[in-house]
């Protein structure tokens, strides 16, 4: 049960908490299954974080890692370990670390799919 970034949402995910806009109006209620339309709606309202049942941010990354060959994942992780110094209790750095990891994983995934363009729409 974790808050996922809007860009990590996929159809079929289930809301663990209702998604509300800035005024507190419920855009989609708890327990609903996400469709493309819903995700688009969240984006329109500027909802950037959504609480999803049974999945959290780390699991999203895990899933992406599992989709890639081991040696690639390892080399990405090694590089990131070199790049990022140890930090403690710094949620910003954690978020940055996660984002960068995702970027690298997705780049690698695109390359292995023969797509040379770096930023491909999800």
């Amino acid at each position: 049960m974790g808050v996922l970034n809007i860009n990590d949402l996929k159809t079929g995910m289930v809301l663990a908490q209702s998604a509300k806009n800035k005024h507190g109006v419920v855009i989609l209620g708890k327990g609903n299954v996400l469709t493309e339309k819903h995700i688009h709606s969240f984006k329109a309202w500027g909802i950037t974080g959504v609480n999803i049942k049974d999945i959290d941010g780390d699991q999203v990354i895990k899933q992406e890692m599992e989709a890639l060959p081991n040696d690639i994942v390892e080399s990405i992780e090694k590089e990131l370990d070199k790049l990022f110094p140890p930090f403690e209790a710094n949620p910003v750095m954690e978020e940055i670390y996660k984002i960068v990891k995702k970027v690298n994983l997705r780049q690698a995934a695109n390359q292995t799919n023969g797509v040379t363009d770096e930023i491909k729409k999800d």
Partner: protein
Amino acid sequence: MKSKKIDRIINSIGELSTLPTIYMKLSHLLSVPNASIKMISNIISEDPAIAAMVLKIVNSAAYGFYNKIGDLQHAVVILGLNEIKNLVLATSIYKVVKEFKASSAFDMQEFWKHSIGCAILARVLAETAYLKNPENVFTGGLLHDIGKLIHAAYLREDFNRVLVNVVETGSQMSESEKNILGFDHAQTGSALAEKWNLPRETVNMIAHHHLSHMSDTLTREIAAVHIGNTLCVALRMGSGGEKRVPIVNQKAWEILDLKLSDLEYVVQKSTKLFKESVSIMEFE
């Protein structure tokens, strides 16, 4: 607390005869109260390379104006004198130092890319956080590491040692510089900016972007450059010599009052703009 050494270096830049007089003329002119727009743009135009580069930058997706400004006079009117000062300084320093055989360990092209990346990230952060003048933050980002160029050009050998030291120990460049040179690029860069009568805001962004001391000033603009810099290193947009990502000062994040989930938006948008700004990456 400027060290004498810094002063000497800064002064020597001004005195080098290889520097086109445009910089001196402009610097002088911009401190004169009634300098006309036409006069300013004329002087800048005396160096076509600088003029062209300034125009390219203000017209790039990176800057956020998208191809609108046709000539320098227009640029001066739209952007205001402070902005123009910032941009002229950035481009002239790069141009001049580029012509020096800077240290071989220091890739100028990658450095320029890093500066642009930081400029974009800082600007997008500033916009997302509703800062008043995101363009100022852009130029702050563009100039934040300018001190490194000075070191690379005028303290070649020592700077090489700094670069090597960073690779070996994994420390931040700033730390290494202080150990080896006695001062860091934030100090050098801000000293130069001050000499040029750049706006106080810009000087501060250069001076305090590391936010490593208690005495460092913290404003939202500085926070944007600080975090922009970290993101830039983390995303490996170009390289300013850092081998490790600088840790974000939590107060800087707090002062911007954004949500963590906004960061991905910032990164996505900036990455997109970075790719679209290829034209300004090549310094002719």
